[in-house]
């Protein structure tokens, strides 16, 4: 379209300029040190992963990956047999059908995170956009405080305050007897666990989301306001869009936290390796579950028992893998946003 530039032939290929000396000694040293540090941490993590998987191997190999994740039989029974297996010189048994535990993990984590994300996104919007200054000034440190409350304390509140209440007010005789032959309903159950878990992970999410909502560039929101788009729509279409990477990050962190939460859940989840069944309608919410992490803690006494120990490591391995996949998923979810200039 325009006349060929003079001597363009010489400019044909990017002649990469003479080997440029980039950065001073100190700078390159810094990069190396930091890089080494990162590698070190990674190494440690890798070592841990390998250890766990090595220990976990027999469990997987005996049941086969498919078998391991299937359902079948009473998982608690299977665990007990492992504990005493090898007694009287018999071979240790590894038979396990872990689906109920997985299902428990999925239920508690999934529900808690779903509720948590919605709730904390709205709460964050409230804190950043609508809350009167004094309220904000009070609530912000308190949210942090909540983030710092140990899970044991939540567990304590759970078993001493919430579980009994649920047991008295929400569980009728009829409901109990309806599933009597399958499982026994008690104050600590799926809904209690989910509730407390949600309360536990919310602060982290609120903190992260609101901080990034607060960082939405003023010109964007103003620009939207200047077009006569009301405050809510502006938040909805501009602020939330900009904050999405943070929301994702928050979700990842929270999910990971929920996956790994053990103590509290072992206190209030009902402690039965039972696959709560949605078909039971409302009752479903009051059926006991026991997520993987809680199972590990509850049986950690038996880590020395050969087969049970290996099995527990296998559960740990599963948790690790899912956490890793989780972070990958989060990363992938952020990619499309980058190209529109939303920095993640």
């Amino acid at each position, binding site marked *: 379209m325009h006349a060929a530039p003079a001597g363009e032939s010489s400019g044909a290929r990017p002649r990469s300029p003479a080997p440029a000396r980039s950065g001073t000694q100190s700078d390159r040293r810094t990069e190396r040190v930091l890089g080494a540090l990162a590698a070190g941490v990674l190494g440690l993590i890798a070592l841990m992963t390998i250890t766990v998987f090595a220990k976990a191997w027999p469990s997987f190999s005996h049941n086969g990956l498919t078998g391991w994740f299937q359902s079948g039989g*009473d998982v608690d029974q299977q665990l007990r047999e492992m504990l005493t297996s090898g007694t009287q010189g018999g071979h240790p048994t590894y038979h396990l059908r872990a689906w109920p535990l997985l299902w428990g993990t999925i239920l508690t984590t999934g529900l808690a995170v779903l509720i948590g994300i919605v709730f904390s996104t709205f709460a964050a919007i409230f804190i950043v956009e609508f809350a009167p200054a004094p309220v904000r000034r009070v609530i912000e440190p308190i949210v942090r405080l909540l983030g710092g409350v140990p899970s044991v304390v939540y567990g304590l509140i759970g078993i001493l305050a919430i579980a009994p209440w649920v*047991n008295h007010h929400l569980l009728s005789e009829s409901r*109990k007897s309806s599933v009597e*032959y399958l499982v*026994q309903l008690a104050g600590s159950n799926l809904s209690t666990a989910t509730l407390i878990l949600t309360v536990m992970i919310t602060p982290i999410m609120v903190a992260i989301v609101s901080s990034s909502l607060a960082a939405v560039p003023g010109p964007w929101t103003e620009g939207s306001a200047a077009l006569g788009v009301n405050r809510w729509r502006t938040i909805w279409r501009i602020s939330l869009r900009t904050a999405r990477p943070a929301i994702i990050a928050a979700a990842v962190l929270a999910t990971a936290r929920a996956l790994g939460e053990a103590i509290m859940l072992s206190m209030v989840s009902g402690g039965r390796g039972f696959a709560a069944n949605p078909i039971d309608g409302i009752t479903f919410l009051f059926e006991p579950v026991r997520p993987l992490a809680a199972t590990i803690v509850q*049986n950690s*006494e038996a880590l*020395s*028992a050969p087969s049970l120990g290996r099995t527990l490591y296998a559960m740990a391995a599963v948790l690790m893998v899912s956490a890793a996949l989780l972070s990958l998923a989060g990363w992938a979810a952020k990619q499309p946003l980058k190209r529109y200039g939303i920095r993640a």
Partner: protein
Amino acid sequence: AARALLVDGSTSVFPLATQLAAAYHKAFPKLAKPKIGQGQSDAGINDVASGRVDIADVSRDPIQGVDPHGLIFTKIAQDGICLITNSANPISNLSTQQVQAIFTGQTRDWSDIPGSKVSGPIDLFDRDGASGTQDAFQNIFLGQDLKVSPSATAETSNGLVQNAVRSTPNAIGFVSFAFTEGVNAVPYQGIPCTLRNAKSGQYQGVRNFWMVTKGAPKAAASKFLKWVTSSHNKVARRIIASNWIAIH
């Protein structure tokens, strides 16, 4: 300086062990002071087997094939296990058959139990598989072949069972002596579940507390164990007798 005498293991034995250790150190300030950690029975067994600690407190009987070889179990005391029900349901007695029927899930309703003040489904509270108390309960009350009904709620500690039973009218469960406050300790085979009866040997539901060493106890460890188990050691006797059953 003398190396520490590291003790680790069962939380159930922990209170006893700490008191013994304190007294022991008072008696022989020169000797290595026992340092009591608390984890779990099997963690303790692991530690002692790997030589990480010198003595492990264990609240369950040895299991062949599970326990590493070459461990020496020394019985130091006995603890009792009580059946407990909600205080709204002060049952006067349970026979072995009744207990087995209830815990295996054959009997599912209180109305089938003579003397119960409540009706409706029985809420069973079990302990998780790895617990020493559960192991003891299994051996003492059920015997090898019976199993606790799978529908039972498994709690992770005496305290949780106590707590659950306290807050559930229809509940029944089992705990060590120390956890009968606020609930109804059910007499077993007509014998009230009390420390006295257990000491006198009438009450059957007792289990053993062990201290485990790798091979025969060595220098510091053996001194401590001798002191604990020697039959003419007033101090130790008194401490044990305060809440447990002395056996020497």
